[in-house]
């Protein structure tokens, strides 16, 4: 009896192991089956067009429903045209996208066509300049002349190599609730020259006099870093916050203290709401979900990336919004604000079908058909083709376009890209701002501590 049980247990074990092996072989089974299916499908298309072997491309992007639906449609239209190419979509939420991309890149398993965050690209390229192709090498496959050349130089170009193609035009902007501003008698300047940093404080005081529970600008720590601190220092010093070539800070401690003192003034004069009041919304880009923003009676303006302007204004449908000018100091060495892009498209260098991937992007950027389908799902199109099609369709209207117009017409600051846009550095800026907001130190103390942290960061990069 005991013997039997031992045998039985052994058999169980063997079954478990066999199960493992069986599952292992199952995978190979299914993949071959899938491949076989692929070839079968390919054969039918090859019958139509005998010159090409079937090609499958993986295309990875993030975005909401509207973007997904339009992109899928564009893919279908492309596949109808080039019937030997199949594009496997891999879309998802922005939540975890970067983690997934990093993991895939490190294992050499990334998609062929990749939507990329502008802030990530310098870091990826610095670690390995073989991840992505230089689009200049494929100029015969994709027409890059439809982009403004200066725009391409500022966006996605690192060391003369075009690793990314901008998907649209956007930039940090200012919008305001015209309905409330009119009611409160707040008049925003309508030119860049009349808007400086003190104007914000003056207008803020004016609003406080009208209604002490109202704030001029709804802003959290990440927007304070992006739309106040960075431009302020850029204007003050004329240099980016980190000079990548020397890995040194582009500003002095005194200049940082001046900037932090300005932010403290914004809080002290109640131009902007205490961070504690908006804590529930400021983490995770969701200031527009604040009931006070929705009601349209507390906050007048908002600094944001123009690619999110539609989202912010849609939250409060009863109000009329307008695009405003961003502050520039009178002696500014740099505009501090500038048009850039919300994301890039890259092609993986390890792809087996680089040419087809580039062909798809040519279609994506330069064909009227694609432009009609995609319109502004990745903000204002960067190519002449996209812009003229969208203009014809009446899609180039509204707040997003207004903010981009202001940026392109009046602001030509330096696009800060590199170490300063790395997440770790950004976190130091946001932490300094939170400390000022919560009164956990004077601007001098916060600046001193912050500079030590930034120096540590720079040291760790060498």
């Amino acid at each position, binding site marked *: 009896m005991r013997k039997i049980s031992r045998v039985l*247990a052994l058999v169980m*074990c063997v079954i478990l192991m066999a199960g493992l092996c069986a599952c292992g072989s199952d995978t190979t089974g299914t993949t071959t089956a899938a491949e076989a299916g692929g070839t079968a499908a390919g054969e039918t298309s090859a019958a139509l067009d005998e010159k090409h072997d079937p090609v499958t491309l993986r295309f990875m992007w993030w975005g909401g429903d509207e973007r997904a639906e339009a992109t899928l449609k564009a893919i279908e239209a492309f596949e109808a045209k080039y019937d030997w190419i199949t594009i496997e979509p891999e879309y998802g939420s922005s939540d975890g996208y970067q983690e997934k991309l*990093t993991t895939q890149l490190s294992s050499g398993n990334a998609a062929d066509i990749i939507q990329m965050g502008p802030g990530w690209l310098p870091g990826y390229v610095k*670690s390995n300049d073989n991840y992505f192709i230089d689009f200049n090498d494929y100029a015969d496959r994709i027409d890059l002349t439809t982009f403004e050349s200066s725009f391409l130089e500022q966006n996605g170009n690192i060391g003369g190599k075009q690793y990314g193609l901008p998907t649209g035009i956007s930039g940090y902007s200012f919008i305001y609730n015209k309905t409330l501003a009119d009611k409160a008698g707040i008049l925003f300047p309508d030119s860049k020259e009349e808007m400086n940093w003190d104007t914000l404080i003056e207008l803020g005081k004016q609003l406080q006099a009208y209604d002490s529970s109202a704030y001029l600008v709804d802003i959290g720590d990440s927007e304070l870093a992006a739309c106040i601190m960075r431009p302020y220092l850029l204007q003050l010093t004329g240099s980016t916050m980190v000079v990548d070539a020397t890995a040194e800070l582009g500003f002095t401690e005194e200049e940082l203290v001046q900037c932090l003192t300005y932010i403290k003034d914004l809080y002290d004069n109640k131009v902007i709401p205490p961070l504690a009041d908006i804590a529930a*919304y400021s*983490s995770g880009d969701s200031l527009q979900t604040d009931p006070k923003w929705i009601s349209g009676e507390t906050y007048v303006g908002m600094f944001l990336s123009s690619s999110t302007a539609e989202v912010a204004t849609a939250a409060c449908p009863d109000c009329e919004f307008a695009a405003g000018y961003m502050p520039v100091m009178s002696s500014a060495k740099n505009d501090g604000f500038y048009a850039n892009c919300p994301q890039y498209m890259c092609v993986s260098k390890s792809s087996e079908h680089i040419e087809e991937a580039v062909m798809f992007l040519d279609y994506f950027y330069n064909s009227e058909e694609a432009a009609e389908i995609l319109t502004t799902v990745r903000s204002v199109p960067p190519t002449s083709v996209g812009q003229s099609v969208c203009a014809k369709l009446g899609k180039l209207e509204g707040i997003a376009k207004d903010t981009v117009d202001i940026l392109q017409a009046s602001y030509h600051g330096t696009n800060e890209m590199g170490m300063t846009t*790395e997440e770790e550095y950004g*976190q130091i800026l946001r*932490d300094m701002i*939170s400390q000022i907001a919560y009164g956990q130190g004077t601007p001098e103390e916060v600046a001193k501590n912050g500079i030590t942290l930034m120096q540590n960061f720079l040291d760790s990069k060498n």
Partner: protein
Amino acid sequence: MEKVKVKRWRKRDCMGLVYVAPWLAGFLLLQLYPFLASLYYSFCQYNVMASPEWVGLKNYITLFTVDTDFKKSFMVTLVYTLYTVPGKLIMSLLVALLLNKNMKGINLIRTVFYIPSLFGGSVAVALLWKLMFMDDGVINAVLGFLHLPAIQWLGNPGVALKTICMLEIWQFGSSMVMFLAALKQVPASLYEAAQIDGADKWKCFFRITLPQITPIIFFNMIMQTINALQAYTSAAVITNGGPVKATYLLGIKLYKEAFQNYKMGYASTISWVIFAVIMAVTLLLFKSSSGWVYYEDGGEF
């Protein structure tokens, strides 16, 4: 006779290895490599994309001497653990005792009590929790109705961590289910015997119920301590570590270092420090367990 018995025991006991074999195979095939790899990374500068570069103890030295956030995170995590582990244990045990009855609609009631635990870190719960605890949210409205002052649940650095702990304790369902299962494992004969001896309800609870479920109390205590020291989700989705790092748990710091700052080597260092802390606490708990955990198998292990 004695000799024969010992011999027979040995032979049969070796069968244990056969039963354990699948896990051992899994450990060797699937888990060992990632573990050793991360231990190796903890001595390296490794940004995920380039290959790891050996730097010796540098990461450990940085962690303990330069990185001021680590100390802060560690304290936050400690407080979080001290709140959530006892909180969840007591809550789940009490509710399990309350629900371990035959009353009308008990099935439905048990299901209702488990609902919060069904969500995990779902987007819906994160949003709901934010909306409930925001300044103009339901909770403050209720407080206002009771003429109590409103509280900045998420904005006040002194309160935010407690709010996160509450969310964690609110999801006590899994421990509750285990307690329910454990309560059902207590042999009814023990209660019958006690009743004959005239023991009252409290005596029954302390003399029979509690000792009988100590293995599961112990299990829950260990697992919750491990989970709390690694906690990430609730603080990440609701406050993202803020305000002013009041909820900056080690789990969040670790995740940020690994995937946002691309310092996988440094993140591995933090992980192994967390590992060491958990190991120490667990060993202490195991050492103490012989004093208070009662096993029906006579404590042979």
